[in-house]
């Protein structure tokens, strides 16, 4: 069990600066998800915490103790790799026992731990098999089992679901979440998939180009994105961004349409509206939207339209059965609209 803190952590590969300078605190028992587009430094950050990657500058503390010089084993971390990294020449049992053997645990204790973890993950019948004889999902479980038996102070997951098919991914996601609630170990999970981040995290860390954009609960990150990047990255379909001019209690689009919005100031801004926060309005009111494309999802329907120069997506109730070419009218929920600085992209509050 450990809290982790990073202070002024930097990472360079030669001349390339991957992480400029980063501070982050992770609480004991917390499930933290690092999310961001590929190349944002999230995996590097995880590997730094694991001890697989030395930092170029800064300090790393585990449970208050400096850990920069500690090996992964000394940090007592366990890691589930993207490709699972099972030892191909060992059976499932040996794979799970290996880390314990390295810790000079007695045979009896190793056996007890391996069997308990195998039971929990329902992989007991496979203990005698080699990884090559397992399916992708089974390998994934073995990789988790290998981490679990160690009873580590921190669990690290490096995109462990990306090699699974969509259905299995959803299932394992739920299992990991349940596992975290049961084990109550600090967990750090890296993903580029914002759905995984939203569904599993106690707190999400959104990264871009090695810089933390926002740290917060899934609700905070979704409802109060700190900037345009976070707002656009979290949520699918992505938030719509429209250049506007702020007036008192409203914003005006390029084509002259005015929309009522809370918390306005004055001057230009970027209006951010999630697809579900467009509200159908009677003809003649709000934004006239000529539908370019209609995507029925079943539970609701997405409609694409142009607002000035910008292509927008709105989520509408499927019963309305919209058709391409049809003109709908939308206003936005005034309290759910976001305004961002045109220059910096920072949220204006």
């Amino acid at each position, binding site marked *: 069990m450990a809290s982790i803190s990073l202070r002024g952590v930097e990472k360079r*590969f*030669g001349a390339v600066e991957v992480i400029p300078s980063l501070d982050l605190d992770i609480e004991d028992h917390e499930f933290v998800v690092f999310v961001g587009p590929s190349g944002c430094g999230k995996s590097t950050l995880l*590997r730094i915490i694991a001890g*697989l*990657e*030395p930092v170029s500058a800064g300090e790393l503390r585990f449970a208050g103790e400096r850990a920069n010089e500690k*090996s992964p084993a000394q940090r007592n971390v366990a890691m589930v790799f993207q490709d699972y990294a099972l030892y191909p020449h060992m059976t499932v049992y040996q794979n799970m026992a290996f880390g314990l053997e390295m810790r000079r645990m007695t045979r009896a204790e190793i056996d007890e731990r391996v069997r308990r973890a195998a039971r929990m993950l329902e992989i007991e019948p496979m203990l005698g098999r080699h990884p090559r004889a397992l399916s992708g999902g089974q390998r994934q479980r073995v990789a988790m089992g290998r981490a679990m038996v160690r009873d580590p102070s921190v669990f690290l997951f490096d995109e462990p679901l990306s090699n699974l098919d969509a259905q299995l991914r959803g299932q394992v996601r739920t299992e990991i979440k349940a596992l975290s609630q049961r084990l109550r170990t600090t967990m750090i999970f890296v993903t580029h998939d914002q759905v995984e981040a939203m569904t599993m995290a106690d707190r999400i860390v959104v990264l871009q180009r090695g810089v933390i954009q926002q740290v917060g609960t899934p609700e905070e990150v979704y409802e109060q994105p700190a900037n345009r990047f976070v707002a656009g990255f979290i949520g699918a379909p992505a938030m719509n961004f429209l250049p506007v001019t702020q007036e008192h209690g409203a914003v005006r689009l390029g084509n002259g349409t005015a929309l009522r919005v809370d918390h306005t100031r004055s001057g230009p801004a970027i209006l951010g509206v999630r697809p579900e926060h467009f509200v159908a309005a009677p003809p003649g009111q709000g934004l006239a939207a000529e539908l370019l494309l209609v995507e029925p999802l079943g539970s609701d329907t997405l409609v694409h339209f142009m607002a000035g120069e910008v292509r927008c997506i709105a989520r509408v109730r499927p019963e309305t059965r919209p058709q391409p070419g049809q003109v709908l009218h939308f206003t936005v929920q005034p309290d759910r609209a976001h305004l961002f600085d045109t220059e910096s992209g920072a949220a204006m509050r």
Partner: protein
Amino acid sequence: MSTSLSSRQRGVLALLSVPAVGFTVLMVAFPVAYTLWLSFRATPLGHASHFIGTANYARLLHSADFWNSIRVSLLLYVLSLAMELVCGTALALLLFRMQRMPAILRSILISPFMVPPVVVGMMFLIILDPTIGVANWVLGWFGIAPSAWLASPMGVIPTIALIDTWQWTPFVALIVLGGLQSLPPSVYEAARIDGAPPHRVFWRITLPLLRPTLVTALILRSVDLLRFFDIIYVTTQGGPLNASNTLNIFTFHIGFELFQFGYASALAVTLTALVFGVVLALNQLRRAVAW
């Protein structure tokens, strides 16, 4: 991502290479440096050696035997290489056409180059013997006059080239076959759809795509052929009349039969320069034909 190693790991990893590096320095680097040093010295037997500048090199440049050995080496090199590449490519195309190569055929193909060269020499000594050899007997069936083979000053180089071709053609063929198998099949299909007849496909598609593989085979064979030793030493020892006296045989003769270590060192350095020169040139060629 080599920067991900901690300094401690780097240290241990460096230690792991120390024995191999130490061995190579001791057994290769030192000797090479010593040979280089010795090539500038006179080494009279029973006396201390002394510095004589580039006299050894001047001597070899003025030596008819040296120039003969260069001529012999290059002749043997070009002749063997040409035969091995042509026969090897032909054999590879044949093997490529087979749907599945039987394991026994592969075993047969690797046999020649696994036989010790000394044995190859001995084997052909009896086959090509002018009086009892089976080769002349077989040629007699076709009305071809018996040849002296290795005993003929004119015929010895082609004969040795023939022996080397026997030993290494299958090796070249297996390399080229590997190259053929790694070519994208879609290219052939595209050429077929374009209506190219098979021989055009070979000259316009297969051969150009195969060039990097051929250059690799060329480099590997060049290294061995330029320092040709074993078979010649076993069969002719450079004879008859110096007609098969390659640079490596000549160097060995000077060094370990006449014990002129200084001069032999100069010859060995020259031979090495020749080998590395050719390899570097061919390596440039490899870059040029890469696709």
